[in-house]
């Protein structure tokens, strides 16, 4: 009888721990989704601004073409190719801005300021997303999580690699 009670209590604690882990994992997946939605939104806005810059006086025809192509690529990339495409766009923007053309027209100054503000936000959004993904990977790699399939059908989040130095 005594052993039954002990085994019973042990099982109860164990089940509680499993639900605790599952809740924790669920929250982490949720955090990854939120941080990705945020990053995705910011990147979309960046592509839109890049297209506007390509059409403005800031860009010469050659860079305009390059920038337009990169922006479209970034917008249409699948989630696996996304980071490569976004890095390409960062590169194209970097090339154009490194030329050091300082525009005097107010409309263009506004555009460039908007881009630099957005770049700061993207940098933070990447850090938030990378942290959420790393955390999720860490918890999902626990043996107990794998054995009991606590992650359910949630896909393993993709690590987002971004060349921060071109940003």
């Amino acid at each position: 009888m005594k052993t039954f009670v002990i085994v019973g209590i042990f099982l109860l604690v164990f089940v509680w721990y499993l639900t605790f882990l599952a809740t924790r994992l669920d929250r982490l997946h949720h955090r990854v989704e939120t941080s990705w939605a945020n990053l995705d939104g910011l990147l979309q806005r960046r592509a839109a601004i890049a297209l506007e810059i390509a059409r403005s006086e800031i860009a010469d025809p050659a860079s305009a073409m390059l920038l337009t192509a990169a922006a479209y690529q970034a917008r249409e990339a699948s989630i696996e190719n996304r980071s490569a495409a976004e890095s390409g766009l960062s590169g194209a923007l970097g090339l154009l801005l490194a030329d050091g053309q300082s525009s005097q027209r107010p409309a263009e100054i506004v555009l460039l300021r908007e881009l630099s503000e957005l770049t700061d936000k993207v940098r933070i959004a990447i850090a938030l997303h990378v942290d959420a993904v790393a955390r999720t990977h860490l918890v999902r790699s626990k043996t107990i999580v794998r054995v009991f399939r606590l992650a359910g059908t949630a896909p393993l989040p993709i690590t987002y690699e971004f060349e921060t130095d071109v940003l």
Partner: protein
Amino acid sequence: MLTRSLKIGIVCPYGWDTPGGVQNHVRDLAEYLIAAGHDISVLAPVIDETKIPDYVTSAGKPIAIPYNGAVARVLFGPIAFARVRQWIAQGDFDILHLHEPAIPSISLLACWAAEGPMVGTFHAAAKRQKAIFAIGPILEPVIEKLSARIAVSEAARETLTEHLETDAVVIPNGIYADRYRDGVAQAQWQTNTLGFIGRFEEPRKGLSVLVDALPIISRFAPDVRVFVAGPGDTKDVIESIDPQLRSRFTFLGKISEQDKANFLASISLYVAPNTGGESFGIILAEALAGGATVVASDIPAFDSLLNHGEFGELFESESSTDLAKRVIDLLRDDERRIALGKAGKKHAQQFDWKVVADQIFSIYEMSLVSGEKVRLASENRAWSRFIGRDQRGDA
């Protein structure tokens, strides 16, 4: 920036009516956000509940525990937890901003009790602590609920990475730079004067390093005078000063903001000899904003605030001979002293609340993307039902 007004809950872990950097930060942030049109509720431990502003909710009386080389006035326990849960359930917040959620306090309890958009700010910078390692596995599942982490300095960020293996965005503490911008130089505080502001009785503020340096400084600069501003009992400090040099020290007591601005604009050098326990160095940022040339110890927080000496002179921490040498060099070189002060004043503008609050707000925006509200965590809801307590009643 979001145009709609947000309902923001801020949790301050330390006693609201006790002096301290975190409390000042929370108060300034809350007042800035209220002025920007947001609805703010601050939950904090309070000693005297009759003297708190409207936006503060008391979580009970704080208890004093020794932490990180000082006495921290914090609060935890079942009653505090019930109040935290009630505050969250009734607050209907869009976002929670928890300060210092990694120490045992109501911030940690709030992080435990809530789910939804939550931002945490980490203030402390401490060396590796065994105690935190021991409770790390308990803290981790709680801390990872935060959708974004903010560290107030590079040093605080490193502490966080070391102890909890998680990264943070660095956003400095805010100051009202314009309060110090237009100080008027006062003759009584000018010419070969050294200034010190702070609770000088605390050993970690390092006034004794300056006291020990003065015999050497006065040999090379005979007319040097030291002004110490800040609350505290002067008796012990005066006794520790060489009797021949006592006349060089003037204790001003606590001074007003206007006096502080004038003071910073007048003194030849501002000395910050802190020996540690400092995470950001708000007073240093204010001194820079007031146009003072700064000589500070090379503790990590000051080193990064002054960008390795670009915006102020650094001396080897706790070495009064090195402090004396740097002070003498600068007192003799007016050109360099004034140039440093100017560069520092410009540098300090990035710590202005206008800039800092914008950065914090953009972190809020990023956490709000999920479109959810803050609510009690599922396990707490179940628990409240189980023990038959109505969340919205007076638990």
